Every structure is written in structure tokens, then in C-alpha cells.
């Protein structure tokens, strides 16, 4: 892997998994100044400045390389044992005194929200309260159990049975791309569709359309004859690592990093960090305002200067 340096000659490692909106907002800065590892186990088209790695395996990086590591929403996609191994790998590649920043969805917050809206809905079962309550239940369970990418959450958003203000406040920018694509498809559906019969359809065909239709049909037929081709294989959320395998809160994150050997563990907000020049990267704050891209629990700790 090629190590990228920041403007002030420091070496920072950025590990993340996915997030369309996160990538759109933050890639200009992290692609330029950070070394980037994306947690990915299925084949992906190569991208300049990004290394796809299965981080449940040891990292192919030398010891004591980095001044700082930011692990953004990856730990919840690993089993507890894989998480411990990965924390040990980060410990290994950090320089003594280096800073490790980790962010994951906050189980404590999710649980409190759930209990809060359960009580509210029991007192006042209005549609709004029930919708938010059902969302909080889903938030806790859906990512762990889903069998299709997007799971029930995406289905709920597509069906429109959710509280928009709550989602915005709870998720920051995460659902922005989904909502935009939905709005676009809504707009498309609103166009009056003229139902044509078969003969009208044939007459209105252009040669190009006809060609595309024939190719599409042929491909479909071929796929049915020879299934199991890489191209049309649908990976399950477990295979793509979309599925959540464990959850953390401020206490279990502290246990995790302290057991690995890190010191000075402290909880942070989305905009403060001990990583030098963080205000320049600000990877957890939305570009559109003073809120988190994806509200999470943020913890930072240090590798001790003198390792015993």
C-alpha cells in the first residue's frame, strides 16, 4: 500500500466501509491527505487512492506507521472476536503516542430512544409516535437480521410510513441519497403513461430500441441457461458485511480499546478530536451544517509512548 501524507507531513489511516453520502462529502479531503482502506470482501472496481481490504484479516501495513487512525463505522460489522483482532492490528500500525478514533452507532442512544418512544406511544398512541416507535425498534434489530440489502428500513422509507423530521434529526445526512432517488422515481411515476397495445409498440420502435430489447432478452435467456455467473450473483448482507454483527456503546468501546492496550480513553463529539488539524478534515460533521453526518458514539484513545 502506498502511504499518503497530510499537508503537514503526518501519516493518517482512514478505515471505513460504505456510505454514499459520506463519500460524496468527505472523499475530496480524505483521498488527498489520508491513507484509505475500505472494508470490502466482494470484488469492486478499483478506485484511485483507496485500498479494498478484508480487515478481519491482518493488515498488510508495517508496524508503527501511522500518527492517527480513524475507524468509521466498521466495528459493528465484525464479530466481537474480529473486532478485538482489528483493534490489535490498529495498535500495531500506530506509532507510540498515536491516536485512535473510533465511531460506531450508539447502542445506548438507540436503546434509550426506543424506551422513550415506547413510553410515549403507550401514553399517546398517535400515528406519529407509533411511527417513530416502530422506527426505533427497527433501528435496533433490522441491521442485524436483514436478509436483503437495505432490509426493512429501506422498505419503510419506500412506503413513506416514517416520520421525516425524526429521521433527519436521527440520521443526519445518511438517508439523503435514498430520499433523493425516491423523489426522482416519484417524479417519473407521475408522468402520464400512455398504455400502448402490441402493434402500437412495434410501430413506435426505433432500430436502436429494437436492438437493445433483443440483446436484453437474449442476455436474460442466457442467464437462465447458465446461472451462477459472477455478474448477476446477489450477495447477502452477511456476505457484503452490510449486516451488523455486534453493537457498542461508550462503555464497551472503552473496554475494547483498554483491553487492547490503549490509554487515555475519552468520549468525543462529532466535531472535536485530539487528532491534529481535525478541523481541517472534520470527517464526522456534515458539510451542510453543524450536525453529525451519521450520529454515533465517538471514542478516542492513545497508544502509550513507551510500550512495555
Amino acid at each position, binding site marked *: 500500500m502506498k502511504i499518503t501524507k497530510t499537508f503537514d507531513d503526518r501519516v493518517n489511516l482512514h478505515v471505513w466501509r460504505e456510505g454514499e453520502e459520506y463519500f460524496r462529502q468527505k472523499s475530496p479531503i480524505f483521498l488527498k491527505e489520508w491513507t484509505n482502506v475500505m472494508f470490502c470482501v466482494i470484488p469492486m472496481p478499483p478506485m484511485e487512492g483507496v485500498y479494498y481490504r478484508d480487515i478481519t484479516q491482518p493488515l498488510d501495513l508495517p508496524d508503527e506507521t501511522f500518527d492517527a487512525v480513524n475507524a468509521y463505522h466498521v466495528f459493528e460489522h465484525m*464479530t*466481537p472476536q474480529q473486532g478485538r483482532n482489528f483493534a490489535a492490528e490498529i495498535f500495531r500500525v500506530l506509532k507510540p503516542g498515536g491516536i485512535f478514533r473510533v465511531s460506531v452507532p450508539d*447502542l*445506548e442512544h438507540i*436503546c*434509550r430512544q*426506543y*424506551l422513550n418512544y*415506547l413510553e410515549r*406511544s*403507550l401514553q399517546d398512541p398517535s400515528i406519529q409516535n*407509533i411511527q417513530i*416507535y*416502530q422506527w426505533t*425498534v427497527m433501528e*435496533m*434489530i433490522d441491521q*442485524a*437480521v436483514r*436478509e436483503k440489502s437495505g432490509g*426493512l428500513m429501506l422498505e419503510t422509507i419506500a412506503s413513506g410510513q416514517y416520520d421525516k423530521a425524526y429521521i433527519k434529526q436521527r440520521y443526519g445526512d445518511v438517508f439523503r441519497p435514498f430520499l433523493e432517488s425516491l423523489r426522482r422515481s416519484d417524479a417519473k411515476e407521475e408522468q402520464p403513461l400512455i398504455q400502448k397495445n402490441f402493434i402500437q409498440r412495434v410501430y413506435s420502435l426505433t432500430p436502436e430500441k429494437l436492438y437493445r430489447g433483443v440483446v436484453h432478452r437474449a442476455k436474460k435467456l442466457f442467464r437462465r441457461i447458465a446461472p451462477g455467473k459472477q455478474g448477476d450473483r446477489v450477495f447477502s448482507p452477511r456476505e457484503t458485511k452490510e*449486516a*451488523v*454483527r*455486534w*453493537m457498542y*456503546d*461508550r*462503555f*464497551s468501546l472503552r*473496554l475494547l480499546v483498554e483491553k487492547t492496550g490503549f490509554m487515555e480513553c475519552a468520549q468525543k463529539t462529532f466535531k472535536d478530536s485530539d487528532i491534529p488539524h481535525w478541523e481541517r478534515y472534520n470527517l464526522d460533521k456534515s458539510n451542510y451544517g453543524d450536525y453529525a453526518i451519521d450520529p454515533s458514539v465517538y471514542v478516542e484513545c492513545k497508544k502509550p509512548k513507551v510500550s512495555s
Partner: protein
Amino acid sequence: MPSRPIKIIRNPEGRANLHIWRTGQSYARQKSAVYLKEWTNLYFSVLPQPRSEPVYYGDVRKGLPFSDGTFDAVFALHIIEHLTPDEGKNFAAEIYRVLKPGGHVRISTPDMENICREYIFRLETCLAEPSAGNTMKYDWIMLELLDQWVRDKSGGLMSETIRNGYFDYEYAKYRYGDVFDEFYQSSAESPSPTPKKNLVQKILSAHPKKLYRFIRNKISALFRNNRERKLQDLLLDPRRSLEINKWFYDRLSLKLLLEGAGYKDYSVKSYKDSDIPHWERYNLDQSNHGDHAIEPSIYVEARFF
């Protein structure tokens, strides 16, 4: 689903009750005497099973094999958390279909509200005083909350934790009731890693009888078709055997579920009270060993009018 119609068992009062459950040795040990005699029994299993009266095996996701309006009461013990929310809705509708007017449904399932409250309480305790004992209880409640959704192997991290001895017996027992003892035993019995021997050591140390049996097994295994192995794979994969939980419920989501399916008179019960007539004779949720639940859960009932 069985092709022949299932024989409906009636209790001495002439009422037809349906009992649906999934697993649990201690439950079967304590309660089978009564439910086998007076209830019609459907065991939720994804595998085709032999017909063994008076217990029928079936996949409840494919519907209930009974005609409309058959039962006076239906009791579904720890089934619904193994179904997806959609399958759960269908299941509630199926029970509705097989109930007689005025019939009761009783559902028991792990209580998400209780687990979450306990988790927050344990977290706060640990933040105030992170002692080893508190952390152990905190780690246990984390397992209770998450392990059954995410496990890859039958038994999951919970079995592993029990094998490693990293748990508080009193606390685990308080959380799981009689079921914990069963779980504890089966985890302790599961194979511990034996010291590895190489092939020569293995052959030398083998008793002639053992060696003979080993070779015979290997040969017969070659001939047996792999159906059995496939079955074994299925049982070991908690996702396919439906050992994992696919959802969690609490008093509100069960209410929404049942009222959405058309039930009336929804109420939350304790492990020992029920509106089902003569429940005190069955008492399927209370331990035979004392005044506590076999497996602490949430119990709800509703009626079909």
C-alpha cells in the same frame, strides 16, 4: 405439512386447545405430561419430521394445517421472535383463522422492553462503578440482547461464554429461569478441544475395538448418501434451523400486531395468569419447581369475536 388431517385432541371439558412451540428440553420435561394429554400439539420445525402422534411437526410459516374455526384457544410459546415481521403478521392471521369465535390466543416471547431496560441499568451501573462483577453482568445482558440475532454457530457466543465460565450464575439464572440450567448443561457438554494427536499417535493409542469401529464407520459413511450430512449442516446453521431470532417484541408491538390482525380484548398477563379456561391446570409458563417463570418472557392474550 402433514397430508392427513391432524387429530384434534379435546380436554375433559370438551374444549380444543392448540399448543405451538419450538424447543426447550426443560420445558418439555416439566410440561409434556399435561400438554400431550389435553392439547393438540404442533412443533415448529423447518425439517420434514416423521409423524409421531401426539406431536405434529410443521413449518408455521406455511400456515397452520387446520380448518377455520377449530380451536377454543391457541398458545404460541416462543415462536414469533423466530419469524420475520411479515411472517409474524401471517402467523397471527393464521391463528385468527383457526380460532372459534370467542377463542383466546396467548403468545409468549422474550420481552424486548425488559431486556433494553436491564441493559441501560447495567450500563449505568458499570459507568458508575466498573468492577469485574458489574462488567460481567453487563457483558451478559449484551449477549442476551444481541447474540441471538447475529450468531453464526448453534449456541453462539452465549454457549462460548458459558463454556469459558465467564458469567454470574445467580444473575444468569435470574434472567433465564429454568431454561438457563438446560442451556448451561448443554454448553458444558459440548465438545471441548481435545489435545491433538498426529496420525501415528492416533493409531498407536487406539484400542483395537475402537480402531475397528472407526474404520467401519468411515466405510459406511462412504456409502451413506449425504442426506444426513446436509441435515447436520442445516441443524448447525442457526439461520437455516431458525434458532436465531429474527425480531423482538414488547407489549406495544404485540398489541399493534394482534389488533392489526383483528383481535379484541388485548391484555398483558403474568406467567401464571390467563383467561384461558382451566389454565391453572396447565400452567405452561410457570416452573414446576417454584413460583417463578420457566423462562421469563412477556405474555399477552387477545380474543377473537
